């Protein structure tokens, strides 16, 4: 099983949303990490055939994204999806089952099984409009795996889920990733850290880093420092270095920052985590406003 993305580009007037991205994805969980507007959703939409690329191609086992056979292998959870107001969760699952080519009997069985899996079976006959955000999100996840897809694309799947639901979801995705290609995008760094076997860091329409957690954080290994300094020194450091964390404590300012060399005498180097890398790349402008 191989999903090949070859020089995929999406241009809208003068703005390039996705810029010549090439990837080869095999079984496993891939975490797509990037700030708002970095092109994650556009990339995912093109992988799902919802948006046509300006150039480049997407193929799964040689089948083009525009073909019905490709869509038959696909499960997709968009960032923002709706539902027909008269639908209950069960109706919604049956409807999605019909679109995914399941027979009525298969759709009924799978709907019951998956609603149970996402803990919605007791409210399956309730109208979706009465659901909370988290319940809708769980329903969205259930519909995405209704056809037992080989490619599972999840755009911000943990948005709206409470911590308990997120843990449950992570476990589910980890299980699914064993025999599927799972690509999920999120802002929540810890979700990616826990479940993704490979991390894709996206910025300005391009993949700037790709690899396992260990590989990816080598970019800032030995460059993350922590120090407690007085306010004047803190102001100077904030202006000069990419800041990951600022905290006021006992008349001093605690800073966690990224620098090539120790930024002050009291600075100590600390192990880098994915969040450091994320903030290093995506908190541009934040420091300037502080």
């Amino acid at each position, binding site marked *: 099983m191989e999903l090949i993305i070859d020089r995929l580009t999406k241009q809208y007037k003068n703005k390039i949303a996705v810029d010549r991205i090439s990837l080869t994805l095999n079984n496993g969980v891939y975490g797509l990490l990037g700030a708002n507007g970095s092109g994650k959703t*556009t990339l995912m939409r093109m992988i799902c055939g919802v948006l*046509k690329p300006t150039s480049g191609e997407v193929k799964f086992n040689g089948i083009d994204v525009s073909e019905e056979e490709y869509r038959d292998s696909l499960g997709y959870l968009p960032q923002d999806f709706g539902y027909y107001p008269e639908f209950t969760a069960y109706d919604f699952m049956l409807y999605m089952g019909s*679109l995914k080519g399941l027979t009525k009997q298969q759709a009924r069985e799978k709907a019951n099984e998956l609603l149970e899996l996402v803990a919605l079976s007791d409210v399956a006959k309730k109208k979706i409009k009465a659901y909370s955000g988290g319940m809708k999100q769980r329903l969205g996840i259930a519909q995405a795996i209704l056809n037992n897809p080989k490619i599972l694309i999840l755009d911000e799947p943990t948005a709206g889920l409470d911590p308990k639901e997120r843990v449950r979801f992570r476990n589910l995705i980890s299980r699914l990733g064993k025999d599927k290609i799972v690509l999920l995008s999120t802002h929540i760094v810890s979700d990616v850290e826990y479940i993704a076997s490979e991390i894709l860091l996206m910025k300005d329409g391009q993949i700037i880093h790709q690899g396992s957690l260990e590989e990816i954080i080598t970019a800032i290994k030995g460059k993350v420092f922590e120090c407690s300094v007085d306010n004047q020194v803190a102001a100077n450091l904030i202006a000069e270095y990419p800041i990951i964390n600022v905290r006021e404590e006992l008349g001093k300012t605690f800073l966690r920052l990224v620098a090539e060399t120790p930024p002050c005498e009291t600075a100590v180097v600390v192990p880098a985590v994915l969040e450091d890398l994320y903030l290093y790349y995506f908190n541009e402008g934040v420091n300037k406003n502080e």
Partner: protein
Amino acid sequence: MSNNLKRELKSAFEAPIPTRKSSFLSQFNYPRASRFDFFKRQVGYIRKRVWILSGFLFIGTLLGLYCYKVSTSFVWMVSSVLPFISLVSMNEIVRSTTYNMDELEMSCKHNFLEISLIRIGLLGIGNVLVLIGILFLFVGKTDFGFFRLGLYLTTPYLLNCYGSLFAINRLKSREITYVCGSVTAFVSTLNALFTMQINIIYTERYWVFWIATFIALAVLSAIEAVKLIKKTGELQWSL
């Protein structure tokens, strides 16, 4: 092996939880729903109000023809109501966009394009059947021939189709239902006022006007319908 022994073994040893059940099951090809099954199920997802309104209009016309003397005013009344059938059909066609289901539907095996084509086809056939049914009810009860009566009844309907499709293709708003409702109200009122104010509109003198308007609106509606179908192939996207 005896049943007793089987039971004993079952109670003595707990079966392990399957570890690769889904990957094992996914090796087999299960029978899938055919395209015809999909079509049949889509028919069921068209809201009943579409068929109910069409039925009411047909029955209303039937009752009107039996209870009242058929006159020119009855023709304009029916022709002013027909755009409302087109309105409910339009709302059904743009339902996915209105309720933000289009993105999800585009990613499925039977995608948004297929769903839209089925909806347009079924609703189109439904509307044509109602129009033809009403025409047959009128035949012989007015001074107008079949085709002339057809023109008088369908031209406002087509004007509404064109106006609604024009709006749907250009406006990205999810509130398009209200826009289509306004278009229908405008067309219906315009038709009523027009035919009331110009008493001779249904005479031979305006024959060419009706034919030309009908043809122009039919062509324009067809162009807009093709545009709408093309739009269903890709999400309307902007940064």
